């Protein structure tokens, strides 16, 4: 029934004799034919199976059959690409965090160096330097390296049994900074140069600058890798969409002639690719997360596995951190959206070519 309550078609209409109407036609009478009989639904094999299957009406089948999209292979490709993208994001997060830690540690420590010179009482200059440093705001502890500590520092280069008096070895004073904001570094540098004979201040800025450059380079390289990986994935999806469109040419044609708009056809394909992208993204992201969590656990246990200890020394606790995991979530989201948008765009391109 239509919404107006009138029957759409009278069920037995086709069985009645056709009556000529205004502008209509009449079937010529035939002799010895079965034309008077109504069209009867034939009984065929498959009917029972269909009834068993339906038990009423099943949920409508997808217009584009899921198996017609190169699902499994493309899901694997998307999963691999997502994994690589997530590993890149996680690695960048680790390096970035480690670089920040190194920079923080270094900027919280200064070194006053006093070079030996003729007529200079080294011990007096050291005491002066300690007193001078402690006058400045933001300075924590000030500690002059003892002879034993200096020997230990030089041992890798000059060996055991070093006689400090026999060599013009500069003496070092470690100044720890409690509050870098409060410390007037320029004034301290000036005061050390002016008041301490042979004295100079090293704030390790050369190291921190290099660290910042290295961290930035890693971030840029990571971003470039991420773009390449996602671009490869986009191309894979483009080819897969084209293949799906070609494999479903009949579906596309049928949709065209039942009056489907391009956006409807695109939506039907996009739905499959959205799910496929989400599945691949979650698989790739989950594997990357498992690996990062595993690394974290190994580093925590100070495992004796070769490489882990060195990596821990270099990168700290090897933890991706909340920002890294958020980045991985963002990659999964990006992969899903990118897959869906790419497929939609490819469908529109393909339909434009068909027309």
């Amino acid at each position, binding site marked *: 029934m239509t919404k107006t309550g009138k029957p*759409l078609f009278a069920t037995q209409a086709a069985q*009645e004799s056709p009556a000529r109407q205004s502008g209509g036609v009449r079937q010529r009478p035939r002799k010895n034919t079965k034309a008077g009989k109504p069209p009867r639904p034939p009984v065929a094999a498959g009917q029972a199976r269909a009834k068993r299957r339906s038990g009423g009406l099943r949920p409508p089948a997808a217009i584009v059959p899921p198996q017609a999209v190169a699902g499994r292979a493309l899901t694997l490709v998307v999963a691999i690409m997502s994994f690589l993208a997530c590993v890149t994001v996680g690695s960048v997060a680790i390096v970035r965090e480690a670089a920040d830690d190194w920079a923080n540690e270094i900027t919280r420590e200064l070194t006053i160096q006093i070079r030996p010179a003729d007529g200079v009482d080294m011990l007096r200059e050291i005491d002066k330097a300690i007193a001078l440093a402690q006058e400045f705001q933001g300075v924590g502890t000030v500690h002059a390296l003892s002879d034993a500590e200096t020997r230990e520092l030089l041992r890798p280069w000059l060996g055991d049994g070093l006689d400090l008096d026999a060599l013009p070895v500069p003496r070092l004073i470690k100044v720890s900074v409690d509050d870098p904001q409060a410390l007037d570094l320029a004034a301290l540098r000036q005061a050390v140069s002016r008041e301490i004979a042979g004295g100079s201040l090293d704030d390790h800025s050369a190291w921190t600058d290099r660290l910042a450059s290295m961290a930035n380079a890693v971030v840029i390289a990571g971003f470039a890798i991420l773009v390449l990986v996602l671009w490869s994935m986009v191309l894979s999806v483009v080819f897969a969409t084209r293949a799906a469109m070609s494999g479903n040419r009949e579906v596309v044609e049928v949709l065209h002639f039942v009056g489907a708009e391009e956006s409807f056809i695109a939506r039907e394909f996009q739905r499959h690719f959205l799910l496929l992208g989400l599945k691949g993204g979650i698989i790739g992201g989950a594997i990357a997360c498992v690996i990062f969590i595993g690394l974290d656990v190994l580093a925590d246990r100070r495992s004796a596995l070769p490489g882990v200890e060195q990596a821990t020394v270099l990168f700290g606790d090897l933890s991706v951190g909340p920002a890294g995991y958020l980045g991985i979530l963002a990659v999964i989201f990006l992969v899903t959206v990118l897959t869906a948008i790419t497929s939609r765009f490819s469908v529109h391109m393909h339909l434009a070519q068909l027309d």
Partner: protein
Amino acid sequence: MIRFENVGLRYGMGSEVLRDLTFSIEPQSFQFLTGPSGAGKTSLMRLLFLSMKPTRGIVNAFGRDTSAVSKSELPGLRRRIGIVFQDFRLLDHMTTYENVALPLRVLGQEESDYRSDVIELLKWVGLGERMHVLPPVLSGGEKQRAAIARALITRPELLLADEPTGNVDPPLARRLLRLFIELNRLGTSVVIATHDLALMEQVDARRMILNEGRLSIHD
């Protein structure tokens, strides 16, 4: 409803396959389109279905000059035309019911809104017991009736049928013809492209005969 004025069609740089066609398809009319193979019947059907544009002349469909119709407006016009192909073009992964309901899904209607209409139409074409069957297990006649039902479900103003009886035996051809006549009686214009002289003999209707791209009309 649809009016052709001096329409010509050629593919690429070839010679014209349709020449100087001038005719109208009137509301509630019934006509056969016939002619020898290669006369241009399928090309004319495609022009009628607005899936091609003529290389010259004017095609006016439902009051619109099709040369001025934008690509985004075409689906709306096509929905006013139902088409039945000789090879049915049913989607094998969908049941008869789903195939017939497809044009309504495309229109964005809810299944609960169209279910009774589709079932009623399937019963009308004699497929009430076969609505849950997939096309591969339907007979040729059942497939043809399913294709007709799909073309009719949106109550088109014009039904185009390309060799609708080409794959069925004579008794079934007569039954299908009765369906078209009944549909015409209910108000739909019908154009049946056919080679089948016996089929045309059964109906007192307008005949459009294509020969070497030219059309002659016998009312």
